[in-house]
């Protein structure tokens, strides 16, 4: 498969083999291919189909306030520390359709920090970024999100944050005005700013060990001293050399950079 990825400028060779194979098998079956060479040549020759493959291979399952206890820790323990800074830069790496970015904007607003914050949200996949920019999510998800929000320590009526419109919930400009969305590939792109908080949750699980190390180094290069790195519930710095420069916040998946 390597030649195909190089052909299109994407390199998937550092992806976790097990997950990648599963996504490929799924797409192959979903699109009713009869043999593998047909599948490969379609990917190679048909640019639109290649884009479809990239979208289907990358996992875009996300939700607002996913893992509410994580957000509770951000709300009650991390943001109050960051609040002393004059300006806050936050990077959501692998933001997918943006649910976590809007969750963060709500936290910042409730902590009265939104006015001095900027959230950079990046993903490999341009089509999910279009969704994220709009701030429009299916209304059927709002009951779950509202429960997550309350479990995260939210005190307001969650429905005040959106307006319902034809099966969709639209989140206001006030929140999205503080977001910058852009395409960024953790595999091949470099650091582009210095941040106080980097969130990359359930993205590294799709990478093999080497690529994980590479992405973690990129985060390390992009993180201010005493800045925080937040990973997914089952992700860890434990298997990385970087862990000696970081201090884990209790048993949470949040690490503070204590050494340059």
């Amino acid at each position, binding site marked *: 498969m390597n030649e195909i990825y190089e052909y299109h400028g994407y390199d998937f060779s550092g992806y*976790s*083999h*097990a*997950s990648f*194979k*599963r*996504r490929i098998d799924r797409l192959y079956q979903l699109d009713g291919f009869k043999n593998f060479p047909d599948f490969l040549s379609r990917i190679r020759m048909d640019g639109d189909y290649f884009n479809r493959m990239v979208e289907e291979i990358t*996992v875009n*399952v996300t939700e607002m306030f996913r*893992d*509410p*206890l*994580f957000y509770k820790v951000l709300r009650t323990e991390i943001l109050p520390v960051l609040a002393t800074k004059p300006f806050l830069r936050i990077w959501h790496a692998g933001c997918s359709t943006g649910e976590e970015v809007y969750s963060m904007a709500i936290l910042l607003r409730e902590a009265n920090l939104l006015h001095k914050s900027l959230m950079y949200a990046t993903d490999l996949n341009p089509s999910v970024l279009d969704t994220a920019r709009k701030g429009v999510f299916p209304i059927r998800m709002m009951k779950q999100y509202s429960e997550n929000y309350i479990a995260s320590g939210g005190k307001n009526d969650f429905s005040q944050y959106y307006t319902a419109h034809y099966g969709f919930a639209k989140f206001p400009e006030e929140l999205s005005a503080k977001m910058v969305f852009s395409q960024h590939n953790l595999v091949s792109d470099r650091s582009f700013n210095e941040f106080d908080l980097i969130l990359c949750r*359930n993205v*590294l*699980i*799709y990478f*093999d*060990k080497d690529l*994980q190390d590479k992405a973690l180094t990129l985060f390390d290069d992009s993180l201010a001293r005493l800045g925080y790195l937040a990973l*997914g*519930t*089952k*992700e*860890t710095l*434990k*298997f990385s050399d970087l862990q000696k420069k970081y201090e884990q916040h209790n048993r949470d998946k949040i690490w503070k950079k204590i050494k340059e």
Partner: protein
Amino acid sequence: MEKDKRINGCKLLILGGSAGSLEVLIKILPHLTVLPGYAMVIVLHRKGSEDNTLEELIAIKTTVPVVEVEDKTPLMPGHIYVAPSDYHLLFENNDTLSLDTSEKVNYSRPSIDVCFESAADVYGHSLVAILLSGANADGTNGLISVKKAGGTVIIQEPGSAEVSFMPGNALDNMKPDYVADVKGILELILSINTD
């Protein structure tokens, strides 16, 4: 079914189940003291949440060490691993575990099918897969993959299962190596790698 009742050459044993399967595990686990040459993975349908009660419950029922599964956790013989809630559990070629948050399969994440299929790819004939009680069709396709890859398949005898649908569905769709009640399953597990 009365063939050799010993299972050898096993590197990985996976127990999959849903409703009614925890009771089976609670009966089996206290009898296990060592897992000679193989790792055990338990994949149960569980509520999508952040709690570790299942891991804790399993850990108090056995003296075999239970390892918390995180991404890229190495799989070591003699240890028990529990699939975390809200992730699919997959196996890499280098004896590490990886996790995946993609779509639910059979309304489930972790899905037993996903776990069995991934393990079959990597472990082939050195995999033993056991499907227990449950109310869902998850597990059947996975067992078919395990069998195709040369692994050993054990299905809980539906009459002995608290909820017979899951093992029954598997039996309707594939031919396992063994069908056994709880006692029989325990004997098979105790026979693993004892030759």
